[in-house]
């Protein structure tokens, strides 16, 4: 729900409730005032009659106008003075009208009379109706106008917010361009934009220093590894070396190779995460896969791995360097985890590449498979980063990778939208 829809709704409901209560209260207040008014008139009438009777000791001439009726009736018993309501049939009117009546006792000429003064309430009623009608229509108009005004005004007021939001959405920490934020007169938005600018600027500075640090760290590690490797390369030139020493050197070589690959893989992951491979291009997968198959062919032959290949023309939009690393990792994975005499199948179609292989491993845990340093068994030949690199590449390239285990074959399926671009 949008902020101003929410706001409008709350506003409207509150307004309607307030106006309803106010209208009812207004109605009763108005009615109370009008009754009071009419009662005062009756009081005055009463005073006049009483004065007249005191002066002349006889009843005044009974006269009635259209909205006022005065009646005297002789009575024997005591009459309690007070106000009441009465419905009286007027001449020329169909319905009986509502009257306010004041009842009291007068004594004139030694006789006791019940006097009743009735005053029509109809005029007050219609006045009340008119006032209420005008008030309610005014409220209604105010409501409609406020809803429309709110909607329009809020939209206009919030515009800088949405522009900022779009700018933040397009902001990329790895890219050099500064965030373009709209200038606004609204203080809150100015504050927000300034804060955003500061935050993005400082995070960019931190990001850059972290990036430089991790890159430098990885690069600095390369040099000592290079030194160790070169010393080993020199050491094995020594003809005095014994068989046992040779085995030791071999172990050192293997460890250094592993370290080197690990460092390189971590650096690669960092670079992919930092979006340093963002420029995409059309990659002709048919040619690329064919090239990789040629690269691996002799290796497969030497390990008696049979290969089933089905290739169709296929194009993917991604970074060419990443495409190469992706294929390399998929093929290495299928080869490295295989056993001698196993099988690999490569299936390339538009929008899909599947590489399946036999392995000593049973089904892998699909949840952990792509995690860093996940090793299914006691196999520690691999650094456990190959699949997370594949996953990372898939993520930044907008392609999907999934894993299935069918008939003793591990299937890695890469899918992408073949109609893109």
């Amino acid at each position: 729900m949008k902020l101003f829809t929410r706001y409008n709704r709350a506003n409207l409901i509150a307004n309607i409730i307030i106006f309803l209560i106010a209208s009812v209260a207004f109605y009763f207040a108005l009615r109370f005032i009008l009754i009071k008014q009419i009662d005062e008139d009756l009081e005055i009438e009463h005073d006049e009659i009483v004065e007249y009777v005191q002066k002349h000791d006889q009843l005044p001439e009974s006269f009635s106008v259209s909205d006022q009726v005065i009646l005297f009736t002789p009575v024997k018993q005591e009459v309690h003075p007070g106000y009441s309501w009465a419905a009286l049939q007027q001449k020329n009117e169909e319905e009986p009208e509502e009257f306010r009546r004041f009842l009291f006792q007068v004594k004139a000429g030694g006789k006791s009379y019940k006097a009743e003064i009735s005053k029509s309430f109809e005029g007050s009623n219609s006045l009340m109706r008119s006032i209420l009608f005008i008030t309610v229509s005014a409220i209604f108009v105010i409501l409609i106008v406020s809803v429309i005004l709110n909607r329009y005004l809020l939209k206009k007021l919030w515009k800088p917010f949405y522009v900022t939001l779009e700018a933040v959405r397009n902001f990329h920490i790895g890219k050099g361009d500064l965030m373009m934020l709209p200038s606004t007169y609204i203080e809150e938005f100015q504050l927000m934009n300034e804060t955003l600018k500061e935050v993005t600027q400082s995070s960019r500075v931190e990001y850059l220093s972290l990036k430089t640090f991790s890159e430098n760290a990885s690069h600095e590690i390369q040099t000592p590894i290079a030194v160790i490797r070169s010393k080993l390369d020199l050491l094995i030139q020594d003809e005095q070396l014994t068989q046992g020493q040779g085995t030791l050197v071999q172990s050192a070589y293997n460890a250094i190779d592993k370290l080197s690959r690990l460092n390189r893989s971590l650096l690669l992951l960092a670079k992919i995460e930092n979006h340093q491979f963002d420029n995409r291009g059309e990659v002709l997968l048919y040619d690329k896969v064919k090239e990789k198959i040629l690269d691996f062919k002799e290796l497969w032959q030497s390990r008696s791995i049979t290969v089933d290949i089905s290739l169709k023309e296929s194009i993917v939009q991604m970074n060419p360097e990443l495409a190469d690393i992706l294929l390399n990792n998929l093929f290495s994975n299928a080869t490295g985890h295989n056993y001698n005499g196993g099988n690999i199948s490569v299936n390339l179609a538009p929008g899909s590449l599947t590489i399946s292989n036999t392995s000593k491993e049973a089904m892998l845990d699909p949840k952990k498979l792509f995690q860093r340093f996940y090793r299914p068994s006691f196999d520690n030949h691999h650094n456990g980063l190959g699949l997370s690199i594949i996953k990372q590449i898939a993520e930044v390239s907008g392609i999907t990778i999934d894993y299935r285990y069918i008939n003793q074959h591990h299937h890695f399926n890469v899918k992408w939208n073949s109609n893109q671009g």
Partner: protein
Amino acid sequence: MKILIVEDEKELSQSICAYLNNEQYFCESAYDYHAALEKILLYDYACVILDISLPGGNGMDLLKQLRSIDKMDGVIIVSARNSIDDKVKGLLAGADDYLTKPFHLPELAARVSAIIRRKSFDGKNLVRFDNIELDLHEKVLKVNNIPVELTKKEYELLLYFISNKNRVVAKNAIAIHLWGDSFDISDNYDFIYTHIKNLRRKLVQSGALDYIKSVYGMGYKFSMS
């Protein structure tokens, strides 16, 4: 032939020098920008092994200086930076090759000899060893002038061996040369054995000597004796 090693890491520089120094090459070292610039301006080298980050300056500037005075010394950049961008930049600035640290010394030797071959025998891309001959253009092997069919990897392997003749080359170095450093297959390099076995068989069958000897199971040596 003189080779200049411009590398601030002395240990690495010494290793390279120790490995390359033989009857064919003579190495000199420069550990910083200014020493390197002085040597480059004064002498001619068959090949310069150039590190990018140097005390006192940048290796790229050194390369540009070298090319600006029309010196055609072969240049191979050795850098810890491993991105296409850096490689392209280096090659555009006039480097002949780009090798990422950490490398194996036999790999560097192979690259250096390739550069020197390209620079010195214009067009005549033939590599001879005893009575075998590799045509680098056609990528064919001839033993006693008779062509011998090799697979792609066997051909690369043989050229690599010849560039590192009389030296022990570790299996790990061979694996990286043939498959690349990102190739995370296993730390059991026995699969190389098949290639070596096939190459040896083909050489011997075509009348060449068995030049390749296994050394303690950790590497191989390519030599006459």
